[in-house]
């Protein structure tokens, strides 16, 4: 296992796709900080009093990106083991299938965490001097970061399972990328549905210079009962969590999110190893 990991890390440091993904994460981090600063300058030049774009709004973006970049990385990095025949070599020199699986899982999770850290380092390095310190309390930032890293690890475990069970690198890449986007869009959709108000409250609006009052009425789009429980469960899944994390910055992410991520890691890794042990590697 130690030998597999040391060989894997050596390959990781030399992997072009790893450095490209890390570069993209860091680049987006710098871009977000600079675009925030530009927006702040625009506001100030227009004479808007106390125009401030907080570093917080730029910091909390990385969970959206980490899964999307991790999907092609895991597919290409792990898929190369099949296309180059490395997996058979590893097995023929005596490594167990479980050890091969775990070493790839550790590498993908490490890459995912490094992608997150790449963004965090870049956005803080560029954003701190341009936008000032963060306003969210440090423990909340730390908890958010922990939840986001746990979610990224869960996605890494999911992508590793797909990459280890599918021998075609191209098919793996397509499945992983579409899955990452699907989970993200599902999260956006579920957030919209779950945040629908149960009733529309009494509203006052201006019509022809007069204040008009509209009575409260029930919202037909509100999700109720078992359907709401299913939606909430899906919303807690890794991938969808990225949206939930972004919408709970002020209140703090629910403690169940890292537990769901842990459950996703255990389930995907357990089933992945079981299936990989029975897989015909040709």
């Amino acid at each position: 296992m130690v030998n597999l990991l040391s060989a894997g890390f050596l390959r990781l440091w030399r992997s072009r796709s790893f450095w490209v993904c890390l570069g993209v994460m860091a680049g987006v981090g710098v871009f977000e900080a600079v675009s925030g600063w530009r927006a702040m300058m625009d506001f100030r030049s227009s004479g808007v009093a106390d125009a401030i774009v907080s570093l917080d709004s730029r910091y909390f973006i990385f969970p959206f990106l980490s899964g999307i970049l991790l999907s092609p990385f895991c597919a290409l990095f792990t898929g190369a083991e099949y296309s180059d025949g490395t997996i058979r070599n590893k097995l023929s020199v005596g490594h167990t299938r479980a050890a091969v699986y775990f070493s790839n899982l550790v590498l993908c999770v490490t890459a995912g965490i490094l992608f997150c850290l790449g963004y965090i380092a870049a956005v803080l390095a560029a954003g701190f001097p341009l936008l000032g310190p963060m306003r969210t309390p440090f423990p909340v930032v730390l908890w958010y970061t922990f939840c986001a890293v746990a979610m990224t690890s869960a996605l890494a475990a999911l992508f590793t399972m797909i990459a280890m069970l599918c021998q075609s690198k191209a098919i793996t890449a397509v499945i992983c990328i579409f899955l990452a986007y699907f989970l993200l869009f599902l999260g956006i959709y579920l957030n919209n549905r779950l945040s629908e108000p149960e009733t529309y409250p009494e509203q006052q609006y201006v019509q022809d210079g007069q204040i008009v009052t509209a009575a409260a009425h029930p919202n037909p789009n509100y999700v109720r009962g078992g359907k709401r429980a299913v939606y909430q469960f899906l919303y807690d899944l890794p991938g969808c969590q990225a949206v939930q994390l972004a919408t709970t910055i002020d209140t703090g992410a629910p403690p169940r999110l890292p537990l769901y991520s842990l459950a996703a890691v255990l389930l995907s890794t357990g089933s992945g190893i079981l299936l990989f042990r029975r897989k015909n590697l040709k």
Partner: protein
Amino acid sequence: MRNLLSANLLRLRTSMLFWGCLILMLLLGAGFTLQRYWEQIAYAEFGQLSYLDEVLFRHGLLIGIVTALFVPMFFGIEYSDGAIRNKMVVGHSRLSIYFANLITAAASSLAFCAAYILAVLALGVPLLNGVRLTAAQCALLMLGTLVLSAAFSALYTFVAMLCARKAASAVVCILGVFLLLFAGIYISARLSAPEFLTEYSIADDGQVVEEEPEPNPQYPRGLEREVYQFLYDFLPGCQSIQYGDMSAENPALLAAYSLIILTVSTGAGAALFRRKDLK
């Protein structure tokens, strides 16, 4: 060239990927139509009506994604199986191979669009209200979306023919189309920002007073707005967003830009493919 095309079409007919994408577009067309129908029922008490044209041109939004999946996977096999070298060995020129693949890709994307439209018409005509656009507007929008799908096909054929690794070309095409779509969403949000911000206040006598409008600092002006507008009309992902939310004001211009993309990418792709080392 004719032999290449007929071989490609034969392969297309037996390709599970092709039929899978075709069925996906059918299901998406049916899904969007039924969604609008259910919304119409749910909001019936508020008098909301759903119209056929709200979903009829939405394939413009989807075709870039589905073709990004299909083209690199379908033509990537030519490299991985060595079919390209075989074609050249039996005497076909590189240009004819490139153009045969381009035509096949464009024909496939048009078939995907047709599947979507068919599903929308089959369900939408009996379930939804009619089309609010004139026949000329409908024809222009339809032409625009079809030329856009051909432009997407040309871009993906460019990538698939120049990148010998199927996985890499699939990653480039799929990530590329999502990047273009997100660029479209971003530019759309910037362009639709209001030029002036108006605030209201309530006077002592209870009357609503409209404050003097102030310029919105987030509203792009001058050259910046022109650049955004050009990119919004030119980039295929931005065109997709315009067709998807039915905000395309000048489909003829968009179609002209799509033709330019098709011509330039095909010209560059064919020129580079002629010099490519196929190993």
